[in-house]
């Protein structure tokens, strides 16, 4: 099975522009811990224009989480805001960016549709 986190960020990178982020400008870094390894993704947002990289850089907002948890967030199996309230996801910096970015996560897999 392909890596859900990688899929999420690659898909985001291909989009290049995301209307839901048109009011957002800033950088978000995701530090995802996988055992002893830590994987980083940097998302640079400029009024909806998006650039995704693996650069090591400081950011306006740093999100820290377990890699496995983020895989579930990236596929809609876990809700990012509830995880933040539980303390499973940690957000440091410009919290508003977190609220704007969470709109991009998919909803849970549908059992029925209308």
């Amino acid at each position: 099975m392909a890596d859900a986190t990688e899929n999420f960020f690659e898909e985001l990178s291909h989009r290049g522009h995301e209307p839901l982020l048109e009011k957002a400008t800033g950088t978000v870094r995701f530090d995802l811990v996988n055992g002893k390894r830590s994987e980083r993704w940097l998302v640079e947002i400029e009024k909806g224009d998006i650039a995704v990289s693996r650069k090591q850089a400081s950011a306006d907002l740093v999100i820290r989480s377990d890699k496995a948890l983020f895989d579930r967030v990236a596929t809609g199996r876990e809700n990012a805001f509830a995880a933040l309230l539980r303390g499973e996801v940690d957000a440091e910096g410009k919290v508003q960016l977190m609220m704007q970015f969470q709109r991009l996560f998919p909803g849970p897999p549908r059992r029925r549709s209308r």
Partner: protein
Amino acid sequence: MSDGLVKILDGNTFVVSDERGDIEASLTDPTGLFSFDTRFLSRWVLTVDGQRLNPLSVDDLQYFETRFFLVPGTGTVYVDSKLSVIRQRAVGDGFHEELTILNHDEGPVNLTVRVEAGCDFADLFEVKDALKKKGSYSTKVEKKRLTLGYHRKTFGRETVISASEPAKVDANGLTFTVRIKPHGEWTTDLDVVTAVGAGRRYVRPKYERGEKRARPSMDVDLDRWLRDAPKLESDSEQLRHTYHRSLVDLAALRFSPPIAGGKSLPAAGLPWFMTMFGRDSIFTSLQALPFAPKLAATTISTLGDWQGTRSDDFRDEDPGRILHELRYGEMTAFEERPHSPYYGCADATPLYVVLLDEYERWTGDRHLVREYEQEARAALNWIDEYADLMSNGYIWYERRNEKTGLENQCWKDSWDSISYRDGRLPGFPRATCELQGYAYDAKVRGARLARDIWKDDDLADRLEQQAADLKRRFNRDYWVEGGGYFALALDTEGKQVDALSSNNGHLLWSGIVDKSKAKAVAGHLLGPRLFSGWGVRTLAEGEGRYNPIGYHVGTVWPFDNSFIAWGLRRYGFKEEAARIASGILDAAAFFEGRLPEAFGGYDRPVTKYPVQYPTACSPQAWSTGAPLLLLRTMLGLEPHGDHLIVDPALPSDIGRLELLDIPGRWGRIDAFGRGLMELGKPKGSRRRSR
């Protein structure tokens, strides 16, 4: 206060104590220090030499500050004490208490002063529903500090209690051994700081121990808030008082969620609802527009930023849907409740567009309308794509979260609020009437925004056509022939849920009512079955489920009435609007200017005073906003281009009424009116602008 509880608050942090300043909460009892939907202190009891204290008086200095004057000893009628105790408490991110003991004796005294502290870290939902905790507690005793903690997996909350004077700290509190000189005094600062765990780190409190005031800036802030609002001059002292009370309470109910970047919007009410509610924030922002338009701007941006983007059955979320309620507590965190956020409401989404348009009409802030174009379009799209569950051109609601979602997703959200005349309840989905009115208004106003600001004539044409079609169908399908009013809802078979209700007033407000039907509707609203003498009942007397103290089936809601009055004015019923305004403002006098959420629907001559609904929240934002909207209604304030039309229609007992410096796209304008309205003889109006 009427319930014997003293409440102070700052944003979503608040303290509810008894008149001694003590907190002794049980699981089901709403006293304590609360922040972010969690109780951070459930026990806070002061004793001097083992004795509880007796309250002499309580000064509500400001909404965020109280002073308790106490003497030792309880249970006696006669108080003769050589000691006085003063607790001055200010709420911030936690609270700060200055404890002072005065010795009035000619000799020195040696005292043992103890503050008992404890915490159950209950989620507000647990307090409401009396549920048991699933995590574990901890206590840390240090030299000058007691830390109470609660942890469940990665979820952590702590309360840190400290004192400025030397104290012996144990797991249950702090003890001070005090000697006070003749006619001397002793004082200590006590700080209670709430800490929200974010993984391993804790968010640092906003004030440190030792400051005189928790938030010295709050005073300044309140002064500025009052200065920015229009000034009210009137012969009616009661009206002046109610206006001042409303402004101060509205200031208290402001709330700055992290996402709003330090700006604030109205939370719903104390104590249960110090959080973001889509519907309540929108209604309150509408009420406050002529007085504090910035609230609307924050409501628009914050609710827009949280707008639904995906389909999520647990949260009843759809793309474009405006949230119902956001919570931060443990049960939300662990998804035992869906409020992260919960989207199950059917009215906030069309009302979002209504607010955006009304905001621009008052302020001329086209920038915000452009900035939130995408969200407004998504909201308009939600009405057609996601809310029309029966595919027949109406808004319907039915929860997808069948365990913890809301059954009734309209403002009357209790289980029995929607009924037929004979008392039967319809099945789901339901299409309540006011939702169709809001949808109509959203389309009409959306069309204006599309044409004037977004420069999209196609969308404007389409919305106008849809609105006209909706109005035509609605006046056919919901009109109760022979009754002369609109049905409360349609059921799934297309039959009318035919009870007579206050919702008819919201229909006038929305503009969906055919002119030819408006007179009959107004007649019902002011008729004996709906009008109690204080205001319009939620459900008419004589209906199967009518109960004068039933939450949505007979009580009178000040917020509801303020919109009904606005609706009556919209259709030219000035006198009827003034009668409602007069009744509700008279009622406010019985609550010291602070209208409760609801009061009993008894006939005014029967009880002589309005009977408060038992568990109503107070202050509550949209009740606080009601006098403001009633003032707007009575003065007939209506923006028209860059002008403000003033067309007063006031009851005579108000006398002279002046509202000075009304902010808007015109700069500042004064409105004047004189109460000339008696027994249906409206006359007299003038206006002046500068």
